[in-house]
């Protein structure tokens, strides 16, 4: 059995907010196996985003350990952590976060350029394949401002997947989209999950979105209060 893609052991995260300490996460234990399509659910302020930040290596835990693809994030230098994000994790944001001045093609290409490993021909093929996959091949030369919200989020999905990471994190990917478009995005992510075996972890508080997940981890007040397998998702 391969090692899990994510392994969190007794993780806590404490923020100092003025004079008070905010316990965003307490004693969180979580194992995510490769190929999962996992939803983190919970009300606002339950710690969903904090947990995703810790898994994504954009933040480190106050105590406990987070292993991503075998790497203990709290033991990595800033540089190595950045490298981990670049090579092992794809990100999809609630507000799409595309670089406004770059074209669709360039936005998708961006992680490959940062990696600096591929020839330009390979890059072009890879980017075009992904734009094809998310249905935006005709929009390669457009700027993000010329796209609808759903189209932008599809660009973001392509960008998250372009470097072929084993893990993609999505924080409320449908929160800024109408339900039909949001549904399409989740379908797209699910398709990629099935096709490439890429692990997806996404947070949401929308039950309809949760229903697509292979498993749901429920958070409340910074604690994991349950883990269940979503039957509906499995049924599809």
């Amino acid at each position: 059995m391969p090692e899990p893609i994510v392994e969190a052991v007794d993780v806590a995260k404490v923020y100092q907010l003025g004079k008070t300490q905010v316990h965003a996460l307490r004693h969180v234990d979580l194992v995510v196996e490769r190929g999962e399509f996992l939803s983190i659910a919970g009300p606002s302020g339950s710690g969903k985003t904090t947990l995703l930040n810790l898994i994504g290596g954009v933040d480190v835990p106050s105590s406990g350990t987070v292993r991503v693809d075998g790497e203990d994030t709290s033991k990595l230098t800033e540089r190595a952590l950045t490298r981990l994000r670049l090579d092992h994790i794809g990100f999809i944001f609630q507000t799409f976060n595309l670089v406004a001045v770059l074209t669709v093609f360039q936005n998708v290409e961006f992680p490959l350029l940062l990696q600096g490993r591929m020839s330009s021909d390979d890059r072009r093929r890879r980017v075009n394949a992904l734009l094809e996959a998310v249905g935006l091949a005709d929009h390669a030369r457009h700027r993000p401002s010329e796209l609808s919200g759903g189209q932008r989020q599809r660009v973001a999905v392509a960008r998250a997947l372009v470097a072929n990471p084993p893990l993609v994190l999505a924080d409320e990917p449908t929160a800024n989209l109408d339900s039909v478009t949001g549904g399409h995005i989740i379908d797209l992510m699910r398709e990629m999950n099935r096709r490439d075996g890429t692990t997806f972890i996404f947070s949401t508080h929308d039950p309809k979105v949760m229903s697509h997940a292979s498993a749901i981890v429920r958070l409340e007040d910074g604690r994991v209060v349950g883990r269940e397998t979503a039957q509906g998702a499995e049924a599809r």
Partner: protein
Amino acid sequence: MSVVASRVRQGRILLQMAMRNLVASRVRTLVVGGIVALGVVIVVLGSSLLDSIDVGMTRSIQGSLGGHVQLYNAASRDPLALYGGTMGESVLEPIDDFARLKAAALTVPGVKLVVPMGIDQAMVSMGNVFDVALERLRADVRRRMEQGAPADAPDYEAHKAHLRRMATLLQQELRAAREIADETSGVYRDRKADFDALSTAVEGGFWETFDADPLGSLEFLENRVAPLSLDGGFTFIRYVGTDPEAFQKAFPGAQVVEGSPIPPGQRGALLGKLYAEEWLKLRAARRLDKIKEARDLNGRRIAKDEELQRWVKENTGQTRDILLQLDPVRTREAVRRLQAALGTKEEDPGKIVAALLDTNDDNFDARYRIFYAELAPLLQLYSVKVGDFITIKAPSRSGYVSSVNVPIHGFVEFRGLERSALAGMMSVLDIHSWRDLYGYMTPERAAEVRRLKERAGARTVAREDAEAALFGGGAEVPVEPVAVKPFDEAALLLAGGGRQSREDLFRRRYTQAETDTGVALNAAVILDDPRRIGETMPKLVEAAARAGMKVKAVTWLEASGIVGQSMGLLRMVLYLAVLIIFAVALVIINNAMVMATLQRVKEIGTMRAIGAQRRFVLVLVVVEVVTTGLVFGGLGAALGIAIVHAIGWTGGIAATNDTMYFLFSGPALIPRLGTASLVTSVAIVFLVSILSALYPAVLAMRVTPLEAMQSDE
């Protein structure tokens, strides 16, 4: 290989992002770029102008008086100032034996010529020069009252220093007179008040407070001091005593514009052309010249300009100078010519000349032509002409006034400096006459003094006193009351081994050895290669030291005194302006980029989350600023180059006053583009861009990937 290609692509996308960010915030980019472009225009234009001034002045000064290196006695109290300092002539200790210095200097490799020099001012009997000088100063004062005092006014200071120097010389004359006068006489008492007035005009206090009450001070000088200068008047001449033959070889810029050079080995003087224009020219003609210049060069108009109106009024009111020159035959001829030219039947010579000179803006150019074509040929325009003798009187080293007569061989003009009040006034005098004025005693003369003393039965007196008493002051008597038997000096001279008469003196040809052997104040050294000035200077000092002389070596620029300072001042002003503009640019670019960074926190955070290293973000900001700097710096440079060329095409910047003439070394300044100025401006822009990008880049680097996770709501 693919890594390299990827880096190139990364660089291209950085550049692309930078350019697109710049286009996206156009207003900010234009403001920042505009400032950068302006700064570069100023650098390119300013340094092109200054470089051209540098080149022109270098040529003019090196070619007319400065040479490449100047040597003078190291024991001198003042630094050498070829064109005079603001406080008058610098006091130099003499070089006792120029021949020895010359021989020593010529042993240094690369030395082509060594020219002896002695620079001083002296009086020449002429028209009432005090009034002319006062008028110049009055004009300065009026200009300053109307336009405010400029920060840098070498002319004004020079004019004041000149008047002070005149008062000093007058005072010296008067003091000499008092010392032989009968203290009980009424004349002595009358002269006491005059002497006190002169003393006031000489004192530093008077001049220090001059600017506080310029009109009152001028009034004092006009009413109390000016009348003391003799009615016939005298003028002040600034001259360089030199070996005329060597001088001509060394200074091609010194051109004889009328007459002929001083014949080799002979005595004589070449008067400065500008000096002749300013001080020796018929005043009506001079005023016409000045009105023409004011109209043509400065665009002034008689109808609107009080000064020009005054000149016209003076010309019509003071026709006596002209009429006095005309004998009856010439008077008739003048009237006939003017009647024809002016189309009038006026018979009265005074009225018709006044009519000619009654100019206005419509008829000025025609009248000017008529004056020079019809009337001037009948007149002596200059009070001294080639072949005349002038008497130069100067205080000798011992303080007594010595005087020499010299023939005028011609008029000399210093190319490039011909119009400069500071430099173009210079006349050239043979070194023998200069040595007489300076009070230098040749061995031959020292022997003569001994003989005279023996014959006259004089007791031993100090060397300075003896020299001055015998050669310096004519009828003057030593300060100490020494009992001297009256003697017939001429008889003694003749008996004493045949001193030449005046005629003989001017026909005599001195050998090169005689010209070289003797005192000089400084020596101009001409090198084969002007680029070796720096390395040759210490060698010259060493060579002189080996010959037993302690000399100081200075470059032509240092020796040019005020000139070098004004050049330095201009450079300082330019650098200061550039410094200020780029300091402003630095602050503005910095602020703009800080704002831009704060606006892009989310974008930067996203890039960081996706996997961009801090260095990438740093380079992004720097590339953006440097791109702005280089693009707009390039535009500024292009604009600067265009302006420089445009100025050249339109004939350059015209010199509208004497200071500009001096700085431009000619009537117009045609700026030359220097690669140095272009490289400098690019370097400055680059440096300023990097500096102003630093803080925003650090801010951008501190943006964490967490920022990407914040939602907008």
